[in-house]
């Protein structure tokens, strides 16, 4: 490396890291705070160095039963992902391999249902849920999340399926595979990476979904998004505990997100950007 190149690289290193630290600062600060004592957390002059303690994590679990909310989040996000896949796989398979003149319109229509703001249907869904006993149940939230994510899941699978050579499925058909065999023995193994990243994204979206969990659940079925929101009330202003709870709420999904960052772009832009 020539001196000029090195200088250039050093400059970009400084700039890049400055931006990265600035943007992630709120998160880093939050994680740092979660290890502080309550007193250190609200000190008028913020401490950068302190005695780390796990006190807040312990208190959050004991006082508000963090694990129960986490369990709700896990059940709802994984369940809704599975349910969405169940509907999306046959649909995406049909549109990718037996396209008709209407397929394009169907795909765009599906996406446009996602554009319909959730509030537009809040009242009816709320009333239907109230009358069918689905209010504040994991099943109810799971179903709503699954339907909400369905258009995105279909689109993502569609773009991944399009990359499976059509001839391989046709060869399967010549070998006597019906649609179920074709999907199960050929399509799923061949598009496994795509299905995994679709599932990851659907899980992330369901885990972070806030509107329906805030409006349709209460004490019983509330997932972590709703649990955290309860800290916004004045008595909840214990910074260390808030930070500890938040850290615990986002940690699992943050890891999933980092793992899937590359496929995420392809998936969320429906293959328009690779």
């Amino acid at each position: 490396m020539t001196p000029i190149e090195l200088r250039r690289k050093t400059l970009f290193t400084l700039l890049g890291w400055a931006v990265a630290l600035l943007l992630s600062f709120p998160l880093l600060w939050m994680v740092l705070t979660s290890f502080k004592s309550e007193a250190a957390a609200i000190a008028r002059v913020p401490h950068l160095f302190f005695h780390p303690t796990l006190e807040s994590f312990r208190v959050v679990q004991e006082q508000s039963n963090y694990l129960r909310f986490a369990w709700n989040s896990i059940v709802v996000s994984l369940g809704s992902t599975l349910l969405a896949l169940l509907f999306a796989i046959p649909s995406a398979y049909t549109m990718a391999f037996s396209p008709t003149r209407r397929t394009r319109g169907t795909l765009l229509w599906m996406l446009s249902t996602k554009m319909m703001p959730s509030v537009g249907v809040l009242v009816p869904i709320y009333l239907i849920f109230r009358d069918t006993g689905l209010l504040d149940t994991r099943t109810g939230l799971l179903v709503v999340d699954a339907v909400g994510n369905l258009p995105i899941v279909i689109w993502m699978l569609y773009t991944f399926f399009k990359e499976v050579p059509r001839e391989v499925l046709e060869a399967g058909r010549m070998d006597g595979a019906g649609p179920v065999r074709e999907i199960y023995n050929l399509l799923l193994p061949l598009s496994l990476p795509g299905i995994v990243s679709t599932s990851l994204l659907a899980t992330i979206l369901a885990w972070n979904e806030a509107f329906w969990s805030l409006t349709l659940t209460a004490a019983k079925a509330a997932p972590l998004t709703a649990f955290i929101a309860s800290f916004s009330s004045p008595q909840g202003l214990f910074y260390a505990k808030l930070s500890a709870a938040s850290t615990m709420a986002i940690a699992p999904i943050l890891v999933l997100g980092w793992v899937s960052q590359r496929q995420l772009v392809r998936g969320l832009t429906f293959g328009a950007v690779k």
Partner: protein
Amino acid sequence: MTQHQPVLSGDQIATRPRGRLLLNVPAISVLFLWSIVPLCMTLWFSFRRYNLMEPTRTGFDGWGNYRYLLSDPGLGLAIWNTIFLLASILLITIGLGTLLAILFDQDFFGRGIARVLVLSPFFVMPTVSALLWKNMILHPENGLLAFLMRSVGLKPVDWFAVAPLTSIIVIVSWQWLPFAFLTLLTAVQSLDEERKEAARMDGAGAIAMFRYIIWPHLGRAVAATTMIETIFLLGIFAEIYVTSAGGPGFASTNLSFLIYRYVLMEYDIGGAAVAGLVAVLLANLLAFFLMRSFARNLDA
């Protein structure tokens, strides 16, 4: 890469659909029910007198709910806030995202880890990021910004009282900047190195390079980002719910939150239904234009 598969081209249209088309029925039915049944119910409620607090007062109300909503000073503001939020966030995320993408296209030490740091906010649930900003950054007493302002001798500001909408824009932009950044970075990196070299041979400097080579190449990424962000941000809710609760007054109430106010604060289902219809109308209007340009981009 630069060439893309069109959604459909003529020779791919198969003609053995029959049985296989049935596999699309479950998904289509679910989405159809999901989009039509509640909409019809909303339409029905919008003409009814229906308040959960007054269960005895029911019946047909004609245009009553509509007149009531249209006289609500919050409605116009809510529509404006909805659009303003969306437009500002799109502008900020795509603008800064492009700059960041170009920065991270350069080789530097520890780039991979720095990129992970930049991406992180996207995976944070909306309630967490809203609370984080509200309490630890923007809080007039204990927030870091207050500390910084005090240490340079300024008087700390209660951001959610003074500039509630701007504060929310900052929070949501912070969450969605990573997505725009990552999409644009992927697009920038897919730009053919030889095309850049050819431009350099033609005498293009840094600015001309961006203006004539990089920016046109980003068109699809920008369209896709706009599309996705619009889908998710037209109905921003949690960030408002947790921070400003729509206030002060209606200053940070968007359509989503207005409807929420009607339903769960005033228990006025009829009024909420009308507001819901307005939201649907707005969304469809936007969807119409976005879908058209997105579909075109997908084919290009």
